[in-house]
């Protein structure tokens, strides 16, 4: 073949039919496949048996980083590097450090959450192998698209197409590299 195969895609417009089909594709044992939807469809990630995201741990690391920075900064600058007596108050006390501890915890969590999200979703990636496919483009509009990638071990273009048609997908076709 002059053009290599990227995968097979099929369209759905009904969310219940989609959910049923996704369950079947999961059961069939495919590993390299995905469902593209215009909005998050409830329960689809569970149906696909996607492993729970570890994003929460990344966020938590951001929180710890933020609060450590805040406490360290306020204690070290005030009590170690340049102790300055202001109104006879303590050089460092956790009580006055609370507002900045809080703000930097939030800031650290937010930054790490967004960076973690970008990392886990592999963003930014300004290229997608399906990007010129018309069905794929509709997936951000009004169509649910199941795509089975050619690099899946079980992949065979004919079987995959037949399988998707059987599940009720419309406009099933092979996507070739352009």
């Amino acid at each position, binding site marked *: 073949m002059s053009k290599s195969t990227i995968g097979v895609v099929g369209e759905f417009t009904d969310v219940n039919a989609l959910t049923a089909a996704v369950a079947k594709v999961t059961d069939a044992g495919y590993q390299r496949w995905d469902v593209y939807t215009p909005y998050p469809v409830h329960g689809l990630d569970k149906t696909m048996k996607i492993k729970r995201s570890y994003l929460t741990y990344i966020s938590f690391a951001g929180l710890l980083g933020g609060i450590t920075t805040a406490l360290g900064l306020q204690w070290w600058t*005030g009590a170690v590097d340049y102790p300055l007596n202001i109104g006879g108050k303590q050089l460092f006390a956790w009580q006055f450090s609370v507002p900045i501890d809080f703000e930097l915890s*939030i800031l650290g969590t937010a930054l790490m959450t967004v960076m973690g999200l970008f990392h886990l979703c592999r963003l*930014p990636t300004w290229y997608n192998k399906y990007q010129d496919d018309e069905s794929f483009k509709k997936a951000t509009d009004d169509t649910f698209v199941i795509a089975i990638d050619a690099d899946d071990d079980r992949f065979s273009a004919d079987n995959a197409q037949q399988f998707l048609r059987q599940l009720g997908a419309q406009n099933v076709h092979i996507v070739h590299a352009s």
Partner: protein
Amino acid sequence: MTAQHHEQVREPLVLGNPSLRDVTARIASIVESKISMKYLLTLGFTATMAGWGLFALYYTITTGIGVWGLNNPIGWGWDITNFVFWIGIGHAGTLISAILFLFRQKWRTAINRSAEAMTIFAVICALTMVLSHTGRPWLFYWLLPYPNQMQMWVNFRSPLAWDVFAVNTYFTVSALFWFVGLLPDLATLRNYVKSDLAKKIYGFFSFGWTGSTRSWHHYEIAYMILAGISTPLVLSVHSVVSFDFTVGILPGWHTTIFPPYFVAGAIFSGFAMVMTLLVICREILDLKQFITLKHLDNMNKIMLATGMMVGYAYILEFFIAWYSGSDWESWIFINRAFGDYAWAYWTMFTCNVVSPQVFWFASARRNIPLMFIISIFINIGMWFERFTIIATTLHHDFLPASWGYYSPTWVEISIFIGTFGIFLTLFLLFAKFVPVIAIAEVKSILPGAQPAHHHGHDHDHDSAHAAVPAVATEGGH
């Protein structure tokens, strides 16, 4: 109550029962439509306002803040009034995007995008005010802890230092939250718009979002975390702003009621500003299908509730002033209501406490001209609240010989008009080039958008959506 019953009682959140494609097409059409003369004229007008304000700002910076009406003893005037005013405006956006999200208020999906945009623009205005008030804004980095040749650090025991951290954190987190919410919608526009340039621009900013379920899985968790941390953040920001006053020992400022009172006032004023702009926006951009009377009704209810909270605070302040037994504290409040600035105090009281009372009536909550007028009143009233707090405490201090009166000069007035210009210009640009409604979120709450079996309401397909929460679900859904 069955889901079927719910269906009959609840008003639909989106009118006209649009399909998924209708939602995309409607919002994208705003971006795709040709720029009209009316739009350009409006933009020209607001940009002129902004330009005039920036000129006044330039004059202030090159000459010094002596061009303002500040004097001894009144060291804070319109600068800090405007700062607190603008920071407060921002709070409605975060409340809608974060707190209403956690409470599963699905109606927020129609208004969260524009309210969040207002948050960011309002904080930009607030930063303009607070930087110019430092007098030498080119030395802004002195506010930050950085190693320098003087070996000095900022004083972390000062609420002014806390404020720097609070406001900058608020701006950063709001911008991140807004951008994460925008990602899927920018991808929608990338695939929808016809012009090549627009495709490239939206393509760049959507970062290659595909709508993959594997990505949505992470996305929903990220959105939940951001909402979760923005909720305490929004409560903290105006609390920290109020510390700028309360930690000082001046009568009228040194009170424990300030943090909750400021937060309630911030939400109150923010909703008023959101209301003012949305009433215009839904008319001009023809968004009545998405921003329905039900949305406006709900916002009016929140304004009524927060308006009562500030009303309670106004009255309680007087009681505590008397109950404290402190002569200075008592006198400052008598002076506030009956002294030189009584006109400002009663303007505030009438606008903030009396005017929202009409929202007890359902017909008033759904009367658009009326709610527009009331929202303007509240905007005015909340500005006067900050002015009253600042001016009445400062103008008569402990030493009668130094008592004074403060009025702004044309420079301060111009800068304030300029911040409105900046705010409105940014909002107009946003309304034209960015999806004003959260497309993906609205799609997710349309009837039949979610699988029917999923929520225990399996009476029939059409009714089950009534129980589906808005866009993101709890992490382990």
